[in-house]
Every structure is written in structure tokens, then in C-alpha cells.
């Protein structure tokens, strides 16, 4: 993404949440992998360090309902490297790596597999040598918001079924074992729950609301206007406003093959654009279609179309600040899977849950800098207590898995009860230490500045 486009998107996002001070916090934390010894090549950027994360909303919650067992399980599996195999499992890569909070990952970059940030070759040799087709064809991992309305799946629409698509990702792209029925059920349930973000500029029928600008309104007319050389076609004939801005078809629009029509809803946050991420901005996209279909648009008309896309693609709250409380809420949802899995003696799900939730606690603990982190001063007692508490919780979880492995589900249930009590006891300590943790933007900046200084020293 160009700095200009990235800056524009971030400004928009930050304005939406009213926290302009986030700008520095959001941009500062690129920490590419430097070592040659790891599973992933040097220069890899997984973009895992963002304090401000894409907002994730679930359809059931928007409708006033609650998270189901399947949603919780699918959500945790989505963050679990254990369902993959080979290098992905080794490197701790999960679905969440490419689809952060069910969105995309515009900074994801893996040398040899990415043609540019935000792209990834799903048939390269690193993650599954058996799938290596010898063609460097990196594509954008798309946002999954509204996925249930967006069949077929895959950029080339090769899967009509989301279930088949998910299985293909696990087995063929990331060398995982054939997932069990319950794992697939949960992942599909989770993805189908990921909702589009509310956009006050758009009505339920896909028309602009009174909140949209005049330029966007002029753009809307152009969007629906027949092309000058083919009256049967308009932008809206493929991107149908009354149908989530898709037509469920693949088309050849001169970009190197047949690719499905992407949705435009919330697309302001989906850059880079086109299947291969070749464009950073709507200006480039509109310019391309103007040339390809010889639309004869004036500069003003192109600007109006961009304003329209900008309005359709907007969202009320595109990013959400990560906090200790947000992490605790997510961990509570994930761990609640054990409410069902332990009484059901469901060994597979108990082990997957312990591993995934344990990983999350480990990651949360890393936000409380240890004593040897000299970039952070203050709150050392509080930091260490919080860090220690997260570690104790990892071990409490492991005890559950060990008991279940031994077939002692009564002991597993006791250990789970103990775990829950420990979480309740630890929460105040974690919140108390938050001000000296990486959840504090200035502490975060100091920590990552020190990391960058080390990396610079090693250049």
C-alpha cells in the first residue's frame, strides 16, 4: 500500500474512532523477521503488532443474540496453528495471520510468496511442497466480512461451498491433516457469522443515504450508467447494489484471467485491490476500468466515482483499540468451549482449546515487559505480577489437557474450575499493570523503538 493511501485509510479509521493520537501507534511497529534460522524467510512481515485492530462484528450479536458454541470454537480454531501442518504450524501461522479479525492483512509480506505487501501465493513450496505449481501467482487474502453472501469462494470462484474452500485452505494450502467434521462445522459457522461493518452512508438496499456527499451521489449515478460502448453493461451490472455489490460470477476484465466480482462493502479497508493486489487506491482502480472499457470519463467523473466507492466502502468503526479487557473477553469466549467439551469427553476439542487459549495467554503475557526489557521503566512489580499470572494460567490450562489425556475427565473438570477461578483472580492484576504494558502506546513505542535499534545495529 502506498504511504499516501495507507495514511488516508488510517486517518479515516482514526477519525472514525476519534483517537488521532493512534496514528503513531498504528504505524510504528513493523517488525520484519531478521533471522535466517527461522521457518519463515528473513524479511517476513506478519504485521502482528498492531494495537489498533480491524473491528470484528458477528451477525448474531448484531441481531441481539449471543455467541454460540460453534462460533466460539470456530473463532479459536481460526487463531490456531494446530489445524495446519508443516511450516505454518511450526511458525505459528493461523487463518488469523492472513485474515486479521476476519478482515485482510494489508502488510503481510513473505519473501518468495508475496509479490507485494498484502499478497500471498497459496500454491508456493514453503507451506505445502505438494501444492507447489511452479507459478508465482500471489493473490490477496480477502476480507471475510459478509462472506456468507459472497459465494463462490476463492478469487477464481473455484469453490461453490465455503466448507470445501475451508478444507482446501487447511489441507492443500497449509498442509494440515484432513479436519474433523466438528472442526469444519465450527470454522464455517464462525466465518458465516463475520458481518459487514455498519455503514451509515449506505441504506439496506445498497443506495447511498443522506450521509453521503454530493460527489458520491454523482458517482452513484455514474456507477449505474450504461457503458458508452455496451449499453447492457455498467459498473452496477456486476457490482449489484441490491446484492452486496456482487453478482456471484467470474469475469475477465483484462487482469489475467477469470476472477469473481469482489464486494465493495467496507472495501475502503480491503486494499490492495484486484485479485493480485496491483492497485493501492480507488483512483487507480477507476482509472483502470476507464481505460479498459473505454468509458471516456472526465477527471471530475473519475473523482465522483472514487467518492462513491469511498462512501460505499466506508464503515462506522473500522478499527478497535486492543485492551486488556478486550483480550480477557476474547479469552473467556474461547475457553468457554471447555464448558461443553469436557463433559462431552471431547478429547480433540479439549486439546485444541488448551493449545489455542494457552497461546493466547502467552501472547497476552508478552505485553507485560519483563525485567530484562530495559526499554520500559516503572511498574516493574505490577508488570511482573501480570506476566506471572498469565504464565500460571497457561499451566492451569495444560493441567486440564494432561488430565483429559489420561482419561480423567473429573480431574479435567476440577482443573477447569480452578482455571476459571484463577482467571477471575488474575484479571485485576492484569488491568492494574495495563498502564505499564504494551497496551500503553508510549510504552509500546519505547519497546518497539528498542527492537528497531537492535535490528538497525544488525544491518
Amino acid at each position, binding site marked *: 500500500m502506498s504511504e499516501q493511501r495507507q495514511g488516508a485509510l488510517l486517518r479515516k479509521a482514526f477519525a472514525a474512532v476519534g483517537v488521532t493520537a493512534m496514528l503513531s501507534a498504528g504505524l510504528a511497529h513493523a517488525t520484519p523477521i531478521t533471522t535466517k*534460522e*527461522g521457518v519463515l524467510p528473513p524479511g517476513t512481515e506478519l504485521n502482528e503488532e498492531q494495537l489498533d485492530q480491524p473491528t470484528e462484528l458477528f451477525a448474531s450479536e448484531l441481531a441481539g443474540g449471543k455467541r454460540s458454541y460453534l462460533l466460539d470454537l470456530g473463532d479459536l480454531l481460526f487463531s490456531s496453528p494446530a489445524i495446519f501442518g508443516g511450516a505454518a504450524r*511450526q511458525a505459528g501461522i493461523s487463518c488469523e495471520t492472513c485474515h486479521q479479525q476476519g478482515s485482510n492483512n494489508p502488510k503481510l509480506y513473505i519473501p518468495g510468496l508475496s509479490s507485494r505487501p498484502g499478497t500471498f501465493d497459496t500454491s508456493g513450496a514453503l507451506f505445502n511442497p505438494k501444492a507447489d505449481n511452479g507459478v508465482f501467482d500471489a493473490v490477496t487474502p480477502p476480507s471475510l466480512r459478509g462472506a456468507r453472501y459472497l459465494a463462490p469462494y476463492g478469487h477464481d470462484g473455484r469453490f461453490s461451498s465455503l466448507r470445501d474452500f475451508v478444507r482446501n485452505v487447511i489441507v492443500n494450502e497449509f498442509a494440515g491433516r484432513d479436519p474433523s467434521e466438528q472442526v469444519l462445522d465450527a470454522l464455517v459457522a464462525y466465518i458465516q457469522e463475520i458481518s459487514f461493518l455498519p455503514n451509515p452512508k449506505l441504506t439496506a438496499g445498497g443506495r447511498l443515504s443522506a450521509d453521503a456527499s454530493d460527489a458520491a451521489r454523482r458517482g452513484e449515478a455514474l456507477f449505474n450508467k450504461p457503458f458508452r460502448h455496451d449499453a447492457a453493461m455498467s459498473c452496477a451490472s456486476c457490482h449489484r447494489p441490491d446484492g452486496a455489490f456482487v453478482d456471484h460470477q467470474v469475469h475477465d476484465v483484462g487482469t489475467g484471467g477469470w476472477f469473481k466480482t469482489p464486494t465493495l462493502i467496507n472495501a475502503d479497508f480491503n486494499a490492495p485491490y484486484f485479485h493480485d493486489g496491483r492497485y493501492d487506491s480507488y483512483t487507480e482502480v477507476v482509472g483502470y476500468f476507464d481505460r479498459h472499457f473505454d468509458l471516456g470519463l472526465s477527471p471530475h467523473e473519475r473523482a465522483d466515482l472514487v467518492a462513491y466507492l469511498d462512501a460505499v466502502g466506508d464503515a462506522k468503526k473500522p478499527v478497535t483499540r486492543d485492551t486488556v479487557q478486550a483480550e480477557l473477553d476474547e479469552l473467556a469466549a474461547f475457553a468457554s468451549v471447555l464448558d461443553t467439551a469436557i463433559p462431552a469427553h471431547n478429547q480433540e476439542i479439549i486439546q485444541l482449546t488448551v493449545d489455542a487459549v494457552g497461546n493466547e495467554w502467552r501472547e497476552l503475557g508478552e505485553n507485560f515487559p519483563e525485567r*530484562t*526489557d530495559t*526499554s520500559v521503566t516503572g511498574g516493574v512489580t505490577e508488570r511482573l505480577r501480570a506476566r506471572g499470572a498469565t504464565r500460571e494460567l*497457561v499451566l492451569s490450562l495444560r493441567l486440564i489437557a494432561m488430565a483429559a489425556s489420561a482419561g480423567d475427565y473429573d480431574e479435567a473438570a476440577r482443573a477447569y474450575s480452578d482455571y476459571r477461578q484463577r482467571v477471575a483472580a488474575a484479571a485485576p492484576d492484569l488491568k492494574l499493570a495495563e498502564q505499564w504494558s504494551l497496551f500503553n502506546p508510549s510504552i509500546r513505542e519505547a519497546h518497539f523503538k528498542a527492537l528497531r535499534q*537492535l535490528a538497525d545495529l*544488525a544491518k
Partner: protein
Amino acid sequence: MATSITTTKLIAHARASLLCGALLALSLAMPGRSVAADALAKGAADYKPFAVEHIGIALTGAKKLQAAVKAGDLKAAQGAWIESRKGWEAAEPITGEFFPKLDEAIDAWPDAKQGYHAVEAALFSGKLDEIGAPVDKLVGDLAEFDKQLSAPSFKFSPQGLLNGATKLAYEVGENKSKGGESPYAGTSLTDMYENVEGIEAVYKLVFHGALTGRDGKLAGRIVDKIEDLEKLVKVKDLKSVDQPALKKAGEELAVLLQTSAAKLKLKKPAVGE
């Protein structure tokens, strides 16, 4: 791992103690605070030479590093850093637990001004001229560590040793697939191996005998788990480490060590500071 003669003797002694488990069981089966406490105190005293030796290796390596830097010999300096680091990593069960201030300076992360990693980042990118001051400080800090540790009055507490070993068992399981603890030197796998050796030394020299007398099954499970960890880190390179299995084994070992505390009449070791 190039294990020194002294270490080999210590580990052999520890392994021999496994064979003596039955005899120890006889003497320790009778509940008695003083018997257990005495056994642990003796074990802690038996462990001290291991720690002294490895901090000695760290200090000697650091001094060689200092000399190589002064001589402008990059290859020798890099080799000396690795040698020093091995000694430090094997002593990690006790570094943060018993010497937190020195640990903070010597093993600072991320810190581009002091400690092993500041030196590592510059040294392994060929910048000998930038590391004179941090190397001098590293030598000074390690010398102070060695002095405090070697003092006859210094004694390890069994509780602190159990804490340190448990913490390190947890930390060995941290995912190193993106480079690990020493990403610029590329020696994270060696770090892990030395860590496991350090845990093994603490457990076998200090706790195994006493625990065998009180819960032989648990003692056996701990030995098996340490062996599992050894197998998991005894691989050709960092890429070959089964990270999820290592994490699981490290956590299981930490849980077992925590479980052993009550049997040893010690407090449950915390994995935080």
C-alpha cells in the same frame, strides 16, 4: 553440546543417583521435614559447582571476546560470543532467580546498548568497532556475577532452584520459529539445548533423589519429560524443532515440577518473577 569434564562428572553423578533411587526411597519414605530438607540442601550444594563452572565458561568466553575485539579478529570474536553464551544459557535456571539485577544487565532484551544481545546484533553483522564498550561492560558484569556466585557464603536455596527450573521449563516452550533468543547469531537452538541441560542438572542434582523417595512415579515422569525435551531440541537446526510439541513438553514439565513441590515440602514454584 561440548560439555566440559566437570559437567560430565556432575551429570554422571546425577544420572547415577537415578540408580540409587530405591535406596534413597528407603531413607526418605519416612516423612520427616529435616531428612527432606537436608537432602535438598545437600543437593543445592552439589549443584553449585555446575553453576560456578558455567558462569566461569561465560566469563572466560567474554574475556576471549574482549581480546578478539581488541585484536580486530571478527571470527574469533564471534566464536567467543557463542562460547560465552553457552555457559550463560546452561546457568539460566539461576540467573534471573538469584541475581535479577545482573541478569537484567547481562541478558537485556531489547537493548542496543548493553548485554549479550547488543553485542550480538553488532558482532554478527561484522561491526567490531561498535562493541568495545558493551563488551567491556559484559565482562565486568559477568565477573561480578562470578564473584558473587563463587563466594563461599553464597548458597542456593532449594526453593529458588525449583522456581528457576520451572520458569525455564516454561520458557523453553516459547516459540522460537521466528528467530528465538539469539536471532542475529543464529544460536537459539544451542540456547535451548543448554537450557534443557541446565534444567536437567538442577532437577537431577537437587530434587530427583528426594522426590524418588516420596513419589517415585512423579519423579520418573519428570525424568521422562526432561528426556522428551532433550530429544525435541537435539535436532539439526531451528527449523527442525517441533515447536508445538516443544511448547507442550515444556508446559508439562513445568506442571510436573510444580506438582513436585508439595511432595518436597516446598512452596509451589511460580513461573513469573
